[in-house]
């Protein structure tokens, strides 16, 4: 099986470690990963801000870029949901698209994997981002994967189902409400006594991480892929560390 990684524009530019972790993880599980280099952005920002005409060319481009692969894997619940639910409406004569998976769907549904051989000796809480839970219906897939990670202590996040307040351009159009929601989410994560707040969406984590840092919280934010890619550091792997981080 040859899968195309759609890394997302946010990850490409600001969180490349998530993209690297996704590649590392998938290759470790024996998947042949390709990265169609013409790829850019799924168009969600334009569409959700009220510019569907600007999103349509990007939906068509996505279909062209991903053509010929057996599957597409996206390390983002939000972009994954947008491609699955909105792209068919935008691309008027849709090119035959390979099946599109969000990363945890691909691991649990396509690969039937829960224990992906990861080692992460930290206390972690998981925030089910709105689009990954309500639009994609990831359910307990991320939790099943996290529970199987060696050394990881998974703690419950109070009010987990509540939105973090990012909301794309909502974060800058309604900054006061957005920040108030984000501060509450960080407070809940701190109450959980976790060291790491994990999620399957770096855009939400960018907002939450920015709030945690502004508030000088010791809490760290991390994308799920980076936890699942982490392994015990043996002498051999330490020499290849660059391949993971």
């Amino acid at each position, binding site marked *: 099986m040859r899968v195309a990684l759609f890394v997302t524009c946010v990850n490409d530019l600001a969180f490349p470690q998530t993209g690297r972790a996704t590649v590392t993880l998938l290759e470790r599980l024996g998947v042949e990963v390709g990265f169609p280099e013409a790829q850019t952005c799924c168009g969600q920002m*334009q569409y959700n801000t009220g*510019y*569907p005409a600007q999103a349509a060319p990007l939906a068509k481009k996505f279909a062209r870029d991903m053509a010929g692969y057996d599957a597409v894997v996206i390390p983002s619940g939000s972009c994954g949901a947008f491609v699955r639910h909105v792209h068919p409406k935008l691309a008027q004569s849709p090119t035959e698209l390979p099946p599109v998976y969000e990363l945890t769907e691909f691991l649990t549904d396509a690969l039937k994997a829960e224990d992906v051989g990861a080692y992460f000796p930290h206390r972690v809480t998981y925030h089910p981002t709105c689009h990954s839970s*309500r639009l994609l219906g990831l359910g307990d897939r991320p939790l099943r994967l996290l529970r199987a990670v060696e050394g990881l202590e998974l703690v419950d996040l109070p009010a987990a189902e509540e*939105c973090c307040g990012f909301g794309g351009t909502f974060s800058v159009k309604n900054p006061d409400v957005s920040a108030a929601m984000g501060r509450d989410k960080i407070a809940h994560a701190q109450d959980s006594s976790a060291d790491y707040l994990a999620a399957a969406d770096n855009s939400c984590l960018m907002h939450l*991480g*920015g709030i945690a840092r502004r508030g000088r919280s010791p809490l760290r934010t991390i994308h799920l892929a980076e936890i699942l890619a982490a392994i015990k550091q043996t002498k051999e792997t330490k020499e290849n560390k660059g391949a993971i981080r």
Partner: protein
Amino acid sequence: MSGSATYIGMPSFPQAAKQSTKNAQLRANLTRATHTIRDKRARAVAELEDWEQLRQAGRAIKDHTLRNLDAYLLQVEQAVTEAGGTVHWARDAAEANRIVADLVKATGQDEALKVKSMATQEIGLNEALAAEGISAYETDLAELIVQLGDDRPSHILVPAIHKNRTEIREIFSTQMSRWGRPAPKELTDRPAELAEAARLHLREKFLRAKVGISGANFIVAETGTLLVVESEGNGRMCLTLPETLISVVGIEKIVPTWRDLEVFLQLLPRSSTAERMNPYTSMWTGTTTKDGPKAFHLVLLDNGRTRALADQVGRQALRCIRCSACLNVCPVYERAGGHAYGSAYPGPIGAILTPQLRGTASELDASLPFASTLCGACYEVCPVAIDIPEVLVHLRAQVAEHAPHTQQTESSIANSPEASKSPKFPKSSSHRAERAAMKAATWAMTHPAAYRAAENAILITRSLHPKRFRGPAPQPAKAWTDSRDLPDLPKQSFRAWWKETHR
């Protein structure tokens, strides 16, 4: 008792929310109340195994009725008339208010009792009647609190949700005497005492009133029967004691048959008050000779509804049965408060209903579709499956599309005769800059070489990017960094790493 503030000239949602998010008391009142109702609703809904089927049935009945609304409206008119009522048609708020004021005046009365009603809040009936020298007394406990406090409702079901009982005690003690029987002298903030004070105050009015004014939760087309569901029984007092009853009802409130009510009388109480059944359900069909009002008038209200009906995506908002489940789960409503929405309909449903009923000509109305993170919690709980996020995004596109393209076209549109007719013409020019930015982004994103170059430029200059923008700065950058740090950008993009390691 006229002076409730109106909605005209209110600040945009973000401006209003900037103030309300700082109000710790408001936030505490709202969080406690919404979380309590939210949890109770979830339990009440979980009791029914066929909830999802009920929800889809509710949606289907409403959609069918809306598709055939022309025929059902005529059926209602005929049935109500045959049952001894009089039907009036009101195109907009002004017409409805005019009709009601004239009907009250014709009775020779200068006061009327109100049943809690969203339609009359929507059209500002109390204020319109006051201008004609008619006092309209709210009799729903929470509406009474709002009216006595010269305040505005901030929630569909619990209009005084923003007040706690200490604040309510204060309002009763100082204001009841101005409008009738004063509150007992030693009034405390115990709920039972507050309820008793309201009961005594209202009883005086119930026994005196000659005119009642209501809305309706449903109109059954086959018999012309109106329904009001409530918890307190005060509504039933107003519906049965006066000699004249005037009901102002939105044209979307129709259900075809009694059998259809079976669905809604399960959906509504569980979604709104989290009860299996509400305590009082009053139904009336025209007039009867032996009991109840001698005269009944039904004012059917359009006020933007037919325009909403013409919108293929937006029309689903007309399915709304005003349960307020979406308000109680909305994280934005919880933090901004109901007043920030600037209409009788706050919360997620208000954000899609108000811009359709009123248009988006004002800055406030144009800002409402953006007052959501699109988290989808509202859609999940909606008993008639209104896809609120879908409508929000649809309305955002309308606001963005109707924004002027250039300075020149802005003034030429404003001067054209169309401008005065078109309700959808936002004054804000911020969408012009935004459209240019979105176009530029899409251009770059469809030209991979340009995209790579822009990406590299951003990363090469990363040490120069400020962590926090102060003073004059691009609005989005400042809005982000006022409360959040920007992420540290990496030395190398993912794409550059891939090229280095995989090619």
